């Protein structure tokens, strides 16, 4: 029986897809059979971040509509054989995702996989509801600034009232905070909320802090999940996130300003 994890935020552009790709890859690298589903129908991006955009034939909506079998739509990652991607449809409306259709696919996948990672679209519209409805765990991706924190808070409220677990009065969805684009220097300068500030407002278990890094952008542009770049701080931080999610007790890193030489300033991640 698989565990279903939703990567969500409310606000757009905070790093949900980057996180979904990194966490999916991270889980698979540790030998877990993992599938990452892109719920952003109409604005699909996961295939780009995962570097499989040229191999998309069928998509999520095709499977829901019975136009393709699940196995035809799943794309196996070339770098890690335990990782699969179910891309979103670029041409359909978000309403094409029905609760029954999504439920059926999650049910089918959960028989063959260990983890199902759902990459939620931004906002609190239909697509985001569908992405979080079947979740067992939620990773709330938040940037250290007030509007992102408030949107995350709103999303947490929806999770605790509108998810399948909430509706059926089951054990609530496990919620984790993931702080991304964290810049210790700007926190020190008072331009950014600190980890402590965000945690005080959201009152949530901290799964990890991903430092702001050019490595993330480079990884996205080249279609390589950043967790594979173990030379970068962001890549190491994501590896820690996966470890913590799986129950390892790891200290949080990259929270302090690093003293850098000129070379690092120019080329470092």
């Amino acid at each position, binding site marked *: 029986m698989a565990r279903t994890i939703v990567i969500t935020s409310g606000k757009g552009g905070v790093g949900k897809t980057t996180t979904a790709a990194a966490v999916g890859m991270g889980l698979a690298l540790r030998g877990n059979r993992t599938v990452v589903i892109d719920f952003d129908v109409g604005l699909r991006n996961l295939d780009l971040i995962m570097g499989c955009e040229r191999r998309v034939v069928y998509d999520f909506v095709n499977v829901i509509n019975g136009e393709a079998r699940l196995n035809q739509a799943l794309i196996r990652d070339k770098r890690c054989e335990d990782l699969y991607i179910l891309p979103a449809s670029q041409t359909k409306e978000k309403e094409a995702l029905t609760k029954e259709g999504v439920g059926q696919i999650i049910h089918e996948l959960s028989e063959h996989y260990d983890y199902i990672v759902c990459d939620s679209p931004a906002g609190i519209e239909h697509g985001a509801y569908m992405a979080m409805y079947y979740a067992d765990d939620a990773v709330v991706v938040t940037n250290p600034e007030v509007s992102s924190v*408030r949107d995350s808070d709103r999303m947490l409220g929806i999770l605790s009232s509108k998810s399948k677990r909430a509706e059926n009065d089951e054990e609530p969805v496990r919620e984790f905070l993931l702080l991304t684009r964290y810049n210790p220097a700007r926190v020190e300068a008072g331009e950014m909320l600190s980890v402590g500030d965000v945690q*005080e407002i959201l009152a949530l278990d901290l799964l990890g802090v991903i430092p702001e890094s050019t490595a993330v952008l480079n990884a996205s542009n080249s279609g390589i999940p950043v967790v594979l770049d173990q030379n970068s701080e962001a890549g190491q931080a994501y590896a820690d996130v996966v470890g913590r999610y799986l129950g390892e007790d790891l200290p949080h890193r990259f929270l302090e300003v690093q003293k850098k030489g000129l070379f690092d300033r120019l080329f470092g991640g």
Partner: protein
Amino acid sequence: MPSDQKPFELKADSFSFPTLYLLSNDIDAINESLERQVAKAPGFFLHAPLVFDLSRLPQACTEVDFPMLVGMTRGQGMTPIGVRGGTPLQQEGARLMELAILGDSRGENPKRTAKKPARGDASEEARQQQRGETAAAPAESKIITRPVRSGQKVYAAGGDLIVLAPVSSGAELMADGSIHIYAPLRGRVLAGVKGNEKARIFCQNLGAELVSVTGRYMISEDYPESLIGKSVQVYLSEDHLKIESL
């Protein structure tokens, strides 16, 4: 969307709306007084649904200029939705402005309307008409142990509300009785929403966006500086909202 899916569900839900008890049909006077009220908390009134109660209009005021009234309240950002009470003639006028004619709920609950005067200046007279005693012993209290997030509402019907987890900004706590908060508080807190004047709010650190008892409210800007972040209680004293450190 598949055709076997229901396109909607019809349910009877109950809401509590701000109600403007008209005590005169002088639209200019109402406008002026309302303007002052709205200026104190523009965010609170913006897009707020509004009901006009006509039951306290003096006999002499046989006609109400609904087009003016609707235009004026819309102009101040509110959304008038209906009227309650009034004569058939007045109701006809309201209907012409596409306002709903709402049933008189006082039959079932004498407290509800009699004890909930309009906010602000216009309620001076209204208060004289209020009945003295409050409702019978409240029902069981409601205890909340999980965070109340932005956009969530918690309502304790008939009794007290006790909250043991953080209340985020943009969240709303409401109770017919008192409200107790033993965790960081940043949302809105409305006690005694059905008119229980003995209702109070107790919190460990005053950071709420708004506190209200029976509709008398105060926004965070108006809190005494010295009490912000302090452990306080909020209650009604001679019809005024008082915040006092504990």
